[in-house]
């Protein structure tokens, strides 16, 4: 940009619009977190459903496997953030808010998981989990003004509500898989496509 160029009012407005639009691109999320956790949760629920029908392993085998995979992922991301600090060139208010909300989400998640392990029925426990997912999905969708996530949040809550009235765990798993597919996986992939498109246009 040239130095001290005389501006008209319309040019000023255009600069403001362009730059605010550019900054808005930085708020976009690549959706990779939703895709990764979505597919892990979806696979665990579908395999558990199949396992409940075939009785190959113990009922919670795939959820235990999911727990180990989650711990490994957590360990990996902790090590990566400690030793290979990667900070962006820009800090946005939404990213900061999401970081703090993430902590709240994981603590609440842990409480429900412990409750299930302490005797709360898994059928009801998974409904509570879905309720929590829905809450986080809605905040994400509203924060980034991303409609697929907002719709996904309501679908997740509908699944959570339906989950309160099912009798058997195989139905719980089907509802869980549906909610994760529509609340995590599809919005995650759509966010990823939008993110790539926005960054491709910028180049």
């Amino acid at each position, binding site marked *: *940009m*040239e*130095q*001290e*160029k005389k*501006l008209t*009012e*319309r*040019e*000023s*407005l255009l*600069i*403001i619009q*362009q*730059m*605010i639009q*550019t*900054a*808005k691109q*930085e708020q976009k999320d690549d959706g990779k977190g939703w895709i990764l956790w979505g597919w892990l949760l979806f696979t665990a629920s579908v395999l558990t459903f199949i396992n409940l029908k075939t009785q190959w392993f113990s009922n919670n085998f795939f959820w235990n496997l999911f727990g180990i995979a989650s711990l490994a992922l957590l360990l990996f991301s902790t090590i990566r953030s400690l030793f290979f*600090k990667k*900070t962006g*060139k*820009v*800090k*946005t*208010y939404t990213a*900061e808010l999401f970081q703090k909300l993430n902590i709240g989400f994981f603590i609440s998640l842990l409480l429900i998981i412990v409750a299930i392990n302490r005797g709360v029925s898994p059928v009801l426990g998974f409904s509570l989990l879905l309720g929590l997912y829905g809450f986080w999905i809605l905040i994400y969708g509203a924060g980034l003004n991303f409609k697929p996530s907002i719709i996904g949040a309501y679908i997740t809550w509908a699944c959570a509500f339906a989950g309160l009235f099912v009798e058997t765990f195989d139905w719980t798993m089907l509802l869980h898989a549906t909610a994760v597919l529509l609340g995590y996986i599809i919005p995650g992939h759509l966010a990823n496509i939008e993110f790539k498109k926005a960054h491709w246009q910028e180049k």
Partner: protein
Amino acid sequence: MFNDLDPILHSQLRLAVMSLLISVKEAEFTFLKEKTNATAGNLSVQIQKLKEAGYIEVIKQFKDNYPQTICKITPAGIKAFEEYVKNLQVYLTQK
């Protein structure tokens, strides 16, 4: 009645920098340079002017042994920017 547009903001590069900073919490010098397509020298001069006006805060630090300059809009900068946009709207509607 037209209010004069703030001369500090009524400049292409300074206005671009302020418009970027108003939308984010803070940004590195390299980010501003990349998004405004300005040269490092020119951008430094304009950032200094905005700093002197009290519109932005400039934090110089080291990250992984490399110098890093972080810019942040101040409350005075937000007020000035809002005022500038308001006056701009008056100009555009009256013309």
